[in-house]
C-alpha cells in the first residue's frame, strides 16, 4: 500500500515537472544566437569568393564577376520591365518608361543620361544602348546591402570609382564608391534598394507616387502596418514576391479586383501575389462582419489608406511648366520656397503645388489603364488632357472603388501638330531647357529624337494623370471611418452608380419630401385637434 501510494506521488511529481519544463526545451527552429543567425541566412559568404576579391573599375566588371556564378541572371533580367522599360498593354499600347510621357519631367527621351540613373543597367545614354548586353545589367543597385552604392545622375547609370569633377568644369567633385566592398556584401533586396529609385520617381523624394517616399525606408506602424520596421518589417519583395527576377505587381498591369482566396503553401497560383486578398482573402474582417459586405465594391486600399504622403515627405500634386524661365533680381534662375522650405518654383521647372497627408480621389477601376501617347493628337481645351486614365464603372463587374492620386499640370505641346512635346531638359548643352530656358530649342531637339514633326511653336496644355494609391497602409484603428463616406459630401461623393446609405445625393427627393410632409402634417393635425380639446375644456370651466 505504502509503496503504491509513493509510486503514484512520484508519477504525479514527474508529470508536473515535465509539464512545467516543456516550454523551456528549445524547439528545433527557435531563435539561434547572432552568429548562427548570420550563418543561417545564406549558404554563401561573398567575401570568400576569389572573383570578388579584386578592385573593380566599373559596374560591368562587377556584373561579369556575378555572372561567373549566377550564369543566367542577366538573361532573366533582360525579360523584365526593369530592364526593358517597355510594356505592351493588353490594348496594344506600347508603354513603359521608354515610351510614355508623363506630367512630371515628361519624357526620358533625349534626357537618358540623367533619367536613366534609375535604369537597372550601365550606359543607357541614347538609342544606341545595347539591350542584349549581359554585363550592362546592374546587379548592385538592387542587391547592395551597405547603403554605399551610388549612381550619379547625368552619367547614364554608370558609377564613379575614381574621384572626378562632375559636370566637367563645375567644380563639384563626386566621391568614388568602393565596388569591391559593396560586391562582397551583396544580399537580398530591401526597402532601401527598391526605394533608391521608387521613392524618388519624378525627380525627387516622394514627388511622383504620393504613397511611396523615403519615409518608407524605416517606417513606423502608423505609416505602414506591414513595413513597420519594429513590427512585421515587410520588405518590398514580401508582397512583390519575385521569382527569377520577374517582379509582380507593376502598375502597368494592375489587378483592380482580386476575387481569389488567400494563397496557401504548396498550391500553384497564376494570380498577382501583391494584392491584399492574396494574403487576407475575401472576408478579412472578423470582428465586424458587415465590413466584409463592402469588399465586392470597395478596394481594401480605399478604407485602409486614409491619406497618402503621410510620412512627412510632401508629394507633388501639380506642376505648371508654363511659368518656367523666370530670373531673379540677380539675373540667376529664380527659386522660390514655401514656409516649410519646400521648393515651389524653379526657373527650370515652373510652379509646383505640394501636398502632405492628402485625402485621395476615388474612382471605379477595373485594371485597364489608357494612355495618351506621343503619337496621339491633343486638343487644348477646358478639359485637361488625360495623360493616362483608369477605366471602370459601377456595373462592369470588374471594378472596385479605388483611391488615386490625380496629378495635375500644364506641359509643353505643339499647337500646330497638336502633339505633346518631348522636351530636352537635362544636359549641359545649348539646347537643354534646364540650362538655356528656351522652349523652342528644347522641344525641337526632343521631337527630333522621336522623329516627330515640330512646327516650331510651343504652347502649354493642361494635363491630368492618375496614380493608384496602394502603399502606406494604416493600422486598422486608423482606417477610414464609416461616416467619412456614409454622409453628404463624403469621400465618395463623386463616385457614381452606387447607393451609399447616408449619401444625400442618392436619396429619392420626392420620398424625403413626402415622408417629412406626412410626419409634419400628422403632427399639425394632432396639435390642432389637441388645441380644440383644450379650448373646449377651458370653456366648460
Amino acid at each position, binding site marked *: 500500500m505504502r509503496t503504491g501510494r509513493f509510486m503514484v506521488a512520484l508519477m504525479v511529481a514527474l508529470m508536473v515537472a515535465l509539464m512545467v519544463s516543456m516550454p523551456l526545451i528549445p524547439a528545433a527552429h527557435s531563435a539561434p544566437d547572432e552568429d548562427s543567425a548570420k550563418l543561417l541566412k545564406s549558404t554563401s559568404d561573398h567575401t570568400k569568393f576569389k572573383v570578388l576579391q579584386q578592385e573593380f573599375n566599373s559596374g560591368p566588371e562587377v556584373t561579369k564577376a556575378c555572372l561567373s556564378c549566377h550564369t543566367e541572371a542577366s538573361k532573366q533580367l533582360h525579360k523584365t520591365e526593369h530592364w526593358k522599360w517597355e510594356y505592351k498593354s493588353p490594348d496594344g499600347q506600347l508603354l513603359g518608361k521608354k515610351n510614355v510621357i508623363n506630367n512630371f519631367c515628361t519624357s526620358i527621351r533625349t534626357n537618358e543620361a540623367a533619367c536613366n540613373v534609375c535604369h537597372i543597367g550601365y550606359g543607357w545614354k541614347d538609342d544606341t544602348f545595347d539591350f542584349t548586353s549581359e554585363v550592362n545589367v546592374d546587379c548592385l543597385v538592387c542587391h547592395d546591402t551597405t547603403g554605399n552604392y551610388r549612381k550619379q545622375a547625368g552619367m547614364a547609370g554608370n558609377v564613379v570609382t575614381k574621384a572626378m569633377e562632375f559636370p566637367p568644369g563645375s567644380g563639384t567633385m563626386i566621391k568614388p564608391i568602393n565596388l569591391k566592398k559593396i560586391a562582397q556584401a551583396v544580399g537580398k533586396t530591401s526597402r532601401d534598394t527598391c526605394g533608391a529609385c521608387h521613392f524618388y520617381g519624378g525627380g525627387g523624394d516622394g514627388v511622383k507616387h504620393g504613397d511611396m517616399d523615403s519615409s518608407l525606408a524605416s517606417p513606423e506602424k502608423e505609416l505602414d502596418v506591414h513595413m513597420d520596421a519594429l513590427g512585421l518589417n515587410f520588405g518590398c519583395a514580401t508582397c512583390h514576391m519575385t521569382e527569377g527576377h520577374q517582379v509582380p505587381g507593376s502598375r502597368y498591369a494592375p489587378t483592380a479586383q482580386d476575387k481569389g482566396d488567400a494563397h496557401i503553401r504548396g498550391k500553384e497560383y497564376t494570380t498577382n501575389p501583391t494584392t491584399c486578398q492574396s494574403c487576407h482573402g475575401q472576408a478579412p474582417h472578423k470582428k465586424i462582419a*458587415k465590413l*466584409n*459586405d463592402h469588399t*465586392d465594391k470597395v478596394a481594401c486600399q480605399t478604407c485602409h489608406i486614409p491619406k497618402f504622403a503621410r510620412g512627412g515627405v510632401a508629394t507633388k500634386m501639380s506642376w505648371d511648366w508654363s511659368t518656367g524661365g523666370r530670373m531673379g533680381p540677380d539675373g540667376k534662375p529664380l527659386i522660390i520656397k514655401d514656409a516649410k522650405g519646400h521648393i515651389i518654383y524653379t526657373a527650370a521647372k515652373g510652379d509646383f503645388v505640394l501636398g502632405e497627408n492628402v485625402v485621395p480621389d476615388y474612382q471605379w477601376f477595373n485594371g485597364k489603364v489608357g494612355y495618351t501617347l506621343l503619337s496621339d493628337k491633343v486638343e487644348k481645351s477646358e478639359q485637361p488632357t488625360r495623360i493616362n486614365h483608369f477605366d471602370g464603372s459601377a456595373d462592369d463587374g470588374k471594378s472596385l472603388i479605388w483611391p488615386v492620386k490625380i496629378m495635375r499640370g500644364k506641359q509643353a505641346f505643339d499647337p500646330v501638330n497638336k502633339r505633346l512635346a518631348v522636351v530636352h531638359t537635362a544636359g549641359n548643352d545649348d539646347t537643354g531647357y534646364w540650362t538655356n530656358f528656351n522652349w523652342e530649342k528644347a522641344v525641337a531637339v526632343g521631337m527630333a529624337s522621336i522623329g516627330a514633326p515640330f512646327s516650331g511653336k510651343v504652347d502649354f496644355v493642361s494635363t491630368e494623370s492618375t496614380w493608384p494609391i496602394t502603399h502606406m497602409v494604416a493600422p486598422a484603428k486608423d482606417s477610414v*471611418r*464609416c*461616416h467619412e463616406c*456614409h*454622409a*453628404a459630401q463624403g469621400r465618395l461623393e463623386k463616385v457614381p452608380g*452606387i*447607393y451609399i*446609405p*447616408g*449619401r*444625400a445625393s*442618392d*436619396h*429619392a427627393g420626392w*420620398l*424625403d419630401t*413626402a*415622408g*417629412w410632409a*406626412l*410626419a409634419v402634417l*400628422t*403632427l399639425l*393635425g*394632432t396639435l390642432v*385637434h*389637441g388645441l*380644440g*380639446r383644450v379650448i*373646449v375644456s377651458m370653456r*366648460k370651466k
Partner: protein
Amino acid sequence: MPRMYIFKRFERFWHWAQAGLIIFMLLTGFEIHGSYALFGWEKAANLHTSAAWTLIGLWLFAIFWHFTTGEWRQYIPTTRNIVAVMNYYSVGIFTGAPHPFRATQLSKHNPLQRLAYLMVKLFINPLIWVSGLACLYYNELAASKIAVLAGLPLSTIALVHTAAAFMMLAFLIGHLYLSTTGHTPLAHIKAMITGWEDAQESEPAAAVVNAGGR
C-alpha cells in the same frame, strides 16, 4: 372608481419594449439615412442593427403570444360602429359626448384602433422587416440565384425601407397623440402601464356598445 384589467403583463411588456425600440430605431435609422448626426454613423448603424434583431426577437414572441392566447382576434377588422367612433373623434370629443366604445378584456380596441393596428402589423411592420433584412443581407441577395432578388438594387430596397420608416413615424405621432384622448389625458397611458383601465362613469349609448367581440 371601478377598474377593469385590460392589458396583461406580457402585452404591456411587449408594448413598451416595442415602443422603445421603434423610437430608438427611428432615431438611429434617420441618422443612417443622413437626416442628421447624433450618435455618429458607425454607432447608429450598429445600434440600429442590434435593435432590429431585438425587435425581431420580440415580434416572434409576440406573434407566438397572439396565437396561443387568441389575442390575435383583437385585430379582426370591423366596420360596426366605425362611423360612431369617427364621429366621436371629430365632433363628440369636443362636445363632451361619451366615447361610443368601452374597452373590455375581450375587446380592447375600438374599430379605428383595430384598423390602425392591423395596418401596422400587416403592412408597415412586414415592409420594414423585409426591407430591413434585405439591407442587412444585401450581398447575399445579390449573390442569389433568383434573378429578381439578385437584380434588386440597394437603392430600391432602401427606398422601401425609408418609405416604411416614414409611415411608422406618422403612426407614432398619431398614436402618441391619441393616447391622450382618454377620459383624462393620462388615462390610456396609465392603463397601458398598470393594465387597469378606469371604467367610465357615464354609460355609452346603448346602440354602440362594444364593437366586435362577444
